[in-house]
């Protein structure tokens, strides 16, 4: 899928501004951004429910049509079903629209563990069950691309874990997934690539682990903290050394393995009681990126 110069204006407000990116087969993409950054509007446009002001997009290398949407599964914001129909009847409607066989209904309801409750009305379901039914509906035609917009919004921790497990299971089968979220650890756990939006513009687009050029940092501890700090500062590898939660945080300016650092420390007569090498979390990187923009 590729998007070229997509723009949407609501009156004076520009929700999506000249957005371009492409999605390769088989990857899991995270669409990140604070609330109101244009994630849902972007998805709405490529899913044919929001009319774009300008710009184009393609599905599977072709001009968009409702036929291409039949090969896409999507869940937008909250599960939308007929409340008075059972799960099975609701999926029948989806299967009719997408041209899927009815036997898929059983398979997908089992995938999300709702087969036992298939005859219950949708309105009697808990939010977690509704969200799982939405995933079953999106999967009914074994789509090539699965789009999930805030799939764990409002769920309890157990529900979040269930949904996340299902997503990982689907990703493992080679389905391309686009996951829009403002929950960064969620994206970090499942995505290989990210697109970061801010006020309708792309801030970053690429693999998760190349998001910032940083080499990560060490968390180190020793009995004599002051001596340790002086020693670290005298070494050429670090940009900055600071105190953090009882340990020292030394930010790398070049690549250095934990093994090498330990060896250097030992040679200098310093015995460490704590040594961890870490990468900045996606959350910190994200905050860093969005802060730079202001």
């Amino acid at each position, binding site marked *: 899928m590729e998007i070229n110069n997509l723009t949407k204006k609501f009156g004076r407000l520009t929700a999506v501004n000249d957005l371009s990116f492409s999605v390769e087969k088989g990857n899991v993409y995270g669409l990140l951004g604070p609330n109101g950054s244009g994630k849902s509007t972007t998805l709405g446009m490529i899913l*044919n429910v929001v009319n774009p002001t300008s710009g184009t997009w393609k599905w599977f290398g072709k001009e968009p049509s409702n036929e291409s949407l039949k090969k896409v599964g999507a869940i937008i914001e909250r599960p939308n079903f007929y409340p008075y129909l059972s799960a099975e009847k609701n999926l029948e409607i989806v299967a009719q629209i997408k041209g899927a066989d009815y036997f898929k209904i059983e398979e997908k309801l089992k995938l999300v563990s709702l087969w036992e409750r298939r005859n219950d009305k949708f309105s009697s379901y808990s939010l977690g069950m509704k969200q799982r039914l939405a995933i079953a509906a999106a999967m009914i035609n074994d789509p090539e691309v699965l789009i999930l917009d805030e799939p764990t919004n409002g769920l309890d921790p157990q529900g979040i874990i269930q949904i996340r497990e299902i997503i990982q299971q689907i990703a493992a089968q080679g389905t391309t997934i686009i996951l829009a979220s403002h929950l960064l650890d969620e994206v970090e756990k499942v995505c290989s690539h990210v697109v970061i939006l801010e006020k309708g513009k792309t801030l970053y687009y690429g693999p998760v682990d190349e998001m910032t050029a940083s080499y990560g940092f060490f968390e180190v501890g020793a009995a004599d903290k002051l001596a340790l700090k002086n020693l670290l500062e005298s070494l050429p590898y670090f940009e900055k050394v600071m105190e953090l939660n009882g340990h020292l945080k030394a930010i790398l300016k070049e690549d250095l393995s934990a093994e090498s650092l330990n060896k250097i420390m030992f040679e200098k007569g310093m015995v460490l009681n704590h040594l961890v090498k870490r990468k900045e979390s996606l959350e910190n990187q994200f905050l860093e990126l969005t802060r730079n923009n202001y």
Partner: protein
Amino acid sequence: MLKLLKIEWNKIYYYKATRIFTFIYFLILILIGVILAFIKPTIGGVKLDIAKLGMFNFPEIWQNITYLVAIAKIFIAVIIITNITNEYSNRTLKQNLIDGLSKKEFLTSKILTNVVFASFSTLFVFLICLVLGSVFSTSEGAMWKGIEYVGAYFLKLNLFFSICIFLAILLRKSAFAFLGLIVLWMGEAVISLCEFLIKAWMNKGFENVDPNGFFLSHYLPLNTSSKLIEIPSLEVSGFVLGGSIFNFTPVKWEFCMVAILYSVLFLFLSYYLLKKRDL
């Protein structure tokens, strides 16, 4: 086409309220026929036998029955409006489109529903007229004369249901769609009254205005609908003479044409709204 009907069937039939009201609607159609045939009320000491008044005589029966039964269309209007506004409030319209239904297919499925309801109603009315007529008709007139009223009834239902689709898509809330219907109805009444008053003013006196003359306001949507099948005209002389009091008037074809035009217009406007709006 069949696919769209199947989808609509799931949406409508498995909704308990619509199922019950559809059932009641067709029951009412039959009941109107039964009550007219067998209930003979006594008013002011005079036993009123409408069959003897010529109510069921061919060809007047076609107009009389279609006129009476058309009132029940409000049942189907409620079903159509709630069916569409529910798609908005449950956000299932949005989901249908995301799942790959086109906006054109969505509207087509709703129009098909209208046509199915209108067709079954027409079939029921046709059978009721046929049965009542063959049992009670005392006239020598040809049976099929005036059957065009059944066609007019079909057009009338389709026009009314098209207005319902349009209002439901325009206003997206069922309560407001019904209000819209009332506003349209009252608006047309006010416009008709104004036209009458203007004519009276121009002709210097109410008595100089021919109520059966040409009125532009008759061509407003709901007025067109009521002009399609007008109130059966009565002749008191017939009652005095003990014969039929009903007077056969043929369907006015210009209103059939206008009704078709309006139906197409309202459906086109609905499509335009659906296409233009974001969900």
